[in-house]
């Protein structure tokens, strides 16, 4: 049997890089220079990058208009002052809730919810399809909801608006399926970046929570879209940081303990918040269908009552009150009360089906909680140097990490909204605590809970991260008895093969070639060589043109799957020295390992 090289399509796996280089087919010469040039310029991946810039521009412009709409709704529904009239506080969200319910039920059914899961669904289920009508519906209903005082935020809707616009653009451009799937997250990043004025956070969030992976192409598109949307947004609305706090100076490293406590409390609060949403949402969905016409209105009414009874801060996104909390306007007791009331208000608004986001309420709750914990800690330990603003800012990150389960995004988000790098250490430590506690008490993240309640099965990025990955080293076997020296000739090799026959090995042996490389030979091939009078030929010279792909122990096991069907035995070599054989692997080894994994035994770390 003549072993031949097989053309291997290029793939990004590091383990087969050499194989890629060796076996990549040469590109055909086109013959016409202009056409070659145009082909080069208008390659789809490059065109996609250019398209990403336009997506960013359109998303940015849409988010700007969205902000205007929210502001106008607030002015005309709630009034122009910071202090609101009680009647307006009750009537505005209630009546707006009625209108929103009708719009969502009859006109824009896909506008319901925050928008994050809908974008993920577009990526994984609908091949990137989000109707443009969704963007319009989200725009109108969310602006009305937030402007009238519902406890929701504009960021998630901005994310979905951006995704929807991108999807529409992609469909017009007739992009390939792969590109269509990616275009919605690109638009989502653009929308979120403009809404937060935080490009890094938006990019990280989309990669961390929506796409779950990144390549050069994905990163490029997402970054370009986010940057262009932020440029547009800043052109119209300025580039000041959302919040300003003075530089933080930790006088003693032990002060980090105070922030750690905040992280623990924030983690617990996150669990309470997400449990509340999960529970109440399922209850609301279980109610008769006709109640959906009134659920947003009832939520608005209850929020209005809470506001009239002394906590108008719970209405709307609440950024003004976050700013006030950072400036020490409230006592720590009041801050704790506000955090609790905001949780309730957001539960009411979100679970009633009112379109709007959870990012802003999360930040609000985190800020209030953080400032409250900081205030209480100051009472107990007056020497602590952190100001209310510092604790509030860290608190925002804590809730973001604990509730939304986006630990990396939460750190950068805090840095970007404050423009203050000195807060990095408290944020890192507090967010980590919150994330770990939230994860241990509630393994399923809130977005995953919501998708399951919607009857969808979307991949959970968090679960994928936490899932153990099987590697080649989990399936490979020792190399003893599988190796033949290249200096041996066919006669000697046959002797060795016959003497040390291991029935568990496939009917093939590996041969280490000089200077580098591996090949394989079967017993049958050796016998043929001897029969043909080539018995004195060394294996090295006979097999030099037949190189094998090789693997490394840390490669994902799925990488091996690509090759073990074509080569019965593959070498697993050290990364430091390709000639050093760590083990061997075959198809039965791989399948056996997967079977064991499926049965729940010997799970990888």
């Amino acid at each position, binding site marked *: 049997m003549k072993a031949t090289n097989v053309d291997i399509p290029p793939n990004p796996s590091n383990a087969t890089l050499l194989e890629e280089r060796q076996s990549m087919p040469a590109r055909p010469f086109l013959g016409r220079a202009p056409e070659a040039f145009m082909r080069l310029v*208008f390659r789809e991946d490059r065109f996609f990058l250019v398209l990403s810039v336009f997506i960013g*521009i359109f998303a940015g412009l849409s988010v700007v208009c969205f902000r205007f709409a929210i502001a106008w709704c607030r002015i005309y529904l709630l009034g122009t002052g910071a202090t609101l009239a009680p009647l307006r506080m009750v009537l505005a969200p209630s009546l707006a809730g009625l209108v929103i319910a009708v719009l969502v039920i009859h006109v824009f059914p896909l506008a319901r919810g925050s928008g994050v899961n809908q974008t993920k669904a577009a990526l994984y289920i609908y091949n990137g399809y989000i109707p443009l009508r969704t963007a319009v519906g989200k725009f109108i209903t969310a602006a009305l909801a937030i402007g009238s005082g519902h406890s929701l935020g504009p960021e998630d809707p901005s994310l979905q608006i951006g995704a929807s616009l991108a999807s529409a653009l992609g469909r017009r451009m007739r992009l390939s399926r792969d590109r269509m799937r990616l275009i919605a997250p690109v638009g989502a990043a653009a929308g979120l970046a403009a809404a937060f004025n935080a490009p890094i956070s938006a990019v990280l969030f989309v990669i961390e929570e929506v796409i779950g992976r990144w390549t050069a192409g994905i990163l490029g598109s997402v970054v370009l879209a986010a940057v262009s949307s932020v440029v547009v947004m800043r052109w119209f609305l300025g580039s000041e940081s959302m919040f300003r706090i003075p530089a933080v100076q930790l006088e003693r490293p032990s002060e980090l303990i105070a922030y750690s406590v905040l992280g623990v409390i924030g983690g617990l609060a996150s669990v309470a918040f997400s449990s509340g949403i999960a529970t109440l949402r399922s209850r609301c969905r279980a109610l008769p269908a006709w109640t959906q016409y009134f659920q947003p209105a009832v939520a608005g009414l209850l929020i209005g009552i809470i506001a009239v009874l002394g906590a108008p801060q719970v209405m709307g996104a609440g950024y003004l009150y976050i700013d006030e909390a950072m*400036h020490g306007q409230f006592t720590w007791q009041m801050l704790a009360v506000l955090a609790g009331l905001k949780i309730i208000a957001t539960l009411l608004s979100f679970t009633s089906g009112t379109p709007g986001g959870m990012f802003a309420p999360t930040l609000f709750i985190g800020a209030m909680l953080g400032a409250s914990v900081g205030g209480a800690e100051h009472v107990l330990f007056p020497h602590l140097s952190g100001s209310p603003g510092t604790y509030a800012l860290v608190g925002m990150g804590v809730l973001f990490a604990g509730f939304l389960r986006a630990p990396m995004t939460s750190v950068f988000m805090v840095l970007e909204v404050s423009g203050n790098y000195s807060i990095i250490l408290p944020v890192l430590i507090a967010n980590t605590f919150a994330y770990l506690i939230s994860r241990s008490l509630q393994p399923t993240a809130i977005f995953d809970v919501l998708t399951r309640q919607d009857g969808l099965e979307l991949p959970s990025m968090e679960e994928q991260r936490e899932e153990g990955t099987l590697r080649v080293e989990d399936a490979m076997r020792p190399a003893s008895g599988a190796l033949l020296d290249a200096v041996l000739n066919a006669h000697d090799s046959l002797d060795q093969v016959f003497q040390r026959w291991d029935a568990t090995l496939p009917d093939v042996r590996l041969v280490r070639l000089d200077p580098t490389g591996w090949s394989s030979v079967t017993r049958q091939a050796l016998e043929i060589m001897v029969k043909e009078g080539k018995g004195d030929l060394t294996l090295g010279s006979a097999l030099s043109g037949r190189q094998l792909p090789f693997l490394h122990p840390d490669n994902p096991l799925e990488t091996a799957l690509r090759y073990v069907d074509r080569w019965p035995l593959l070498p697993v070599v050290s990364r430091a020295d390709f000639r050093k054989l760590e083990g061997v692997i075959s198809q039965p080894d791989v399948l056996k390992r997967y079977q064991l994994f499926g049965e729940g035994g010997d799970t990888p770390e």
Partner: protein
Amino acid sequence: MPEPEGDTQAAVGDQRNFRRYLRQEPVILALLSGLAVIFFVAVTALSHLYQAQQEFLGNRWFMRGTTDLKQRHFDAAVMEFRSALLYSRDSYAYRLNLAESLIGLKRTGEAYAYFINLWDREPENGLVNLELARIAAQKGETEPALRYYHNAIYATWPGDEQVQRRETRLELIGYLLNINAKAHAQAELIALAANLEDDPSQQARVGDLFVQTQDYEHALAERLELIGYLLNINAKAHAQAELIALAANLEDDPSQQARVGDLFVQTQDYEHALAEYRLSLKAQPHDPAALAGAGLAAFQLGRYNIAERYLQAAMSANPNDAQSAARLKTTALIMQMDPFQRQISVAQRDRIVLEAFAAAGQRLESCSAAGAAKGPATIPVAQPALSEEWAKMKPQITEPGLRRDPDLVNTAMELVFSIERQTSNACGAASETDAALLLIAKLHESN
């Protein structure tokens, strides 16, 4: 051969698709660019509308807040400035005024948070630094308070920067005195005094502050400078008041006392001047300047016997003192020619009266002659009447006449004094005798 034909057809199809692709994509890009421009223009128009409304609302709330702040309705002002911040979240002026309102409500914790943010943005703002200094002082944080006070002194201020800086430094000095940092306060006072304008109230204030720091030397210097200034602008009453205050706190330093005495003389407060000179002479009894000053003060007070003593001593100490010499001569003349002085005999009194009466007559003559030379219109109305009266009384003014009628002494001397006053007004400077008679007239007027 099928395989080659199939390949050719696939290549042709591929070529067509690619050409279609090439035709479409540039066009699409151009369309997208056009759409972006249109969308951009539309949003720009919308943005103008939005910004105009935001600015209008922000200004409206801000103006209301400013009015309430001026009227010290701090509660309402806070609400209004917060409302203004809804429309211009990052406005420096809105935040500054909100912070000021919070200070008014004594919510210093919240105000501090705003001020510190404002300071981060504009570290050279004088008002912000000053408020931070006050808050730190209130909290008992000395180091930050001093730092912010110094920042405020050298910061930029709206309006009259010099005034603001001076007031800030004065406030700092007050704070330093409160925390008993007298040395530091003194240093600040010296710096302040070096840049002080000619403002009596400020100089007085600085002088008082120097006293509080127990730096009497500088206090005196400041006070003296003030008084000098007041005298220059002819504010004698004010200068006198300052001198009295200064004298009350003066240490036992004869040179300072003498200096103060001189200043009292300049304010024509001879009583106080004499007192100061006397104090000075207690420690330095032979100080020529103090003696001369005391002599002058006593002379001006009409205490000629005291004046004579001091002036004689002054001449002994400094024979070249021409002014004291002249004054001494006049004093001696007065004492010779005063008929009402005690311890003189009747004969001596009568002789003095006769001499005075004669001198008055001569004065009338010379004055009338001078007036006639200038013209009848220059002769005062009363002068001929006085001449007549003098002429009428002359026969009675003899030694026997005066002995017979003691009241005639008063009558004669009254006429003499009237003549001297009248002729002094009409004819100006007279002889030494007339000058002495005039002074005697003034002396007895006050008595």
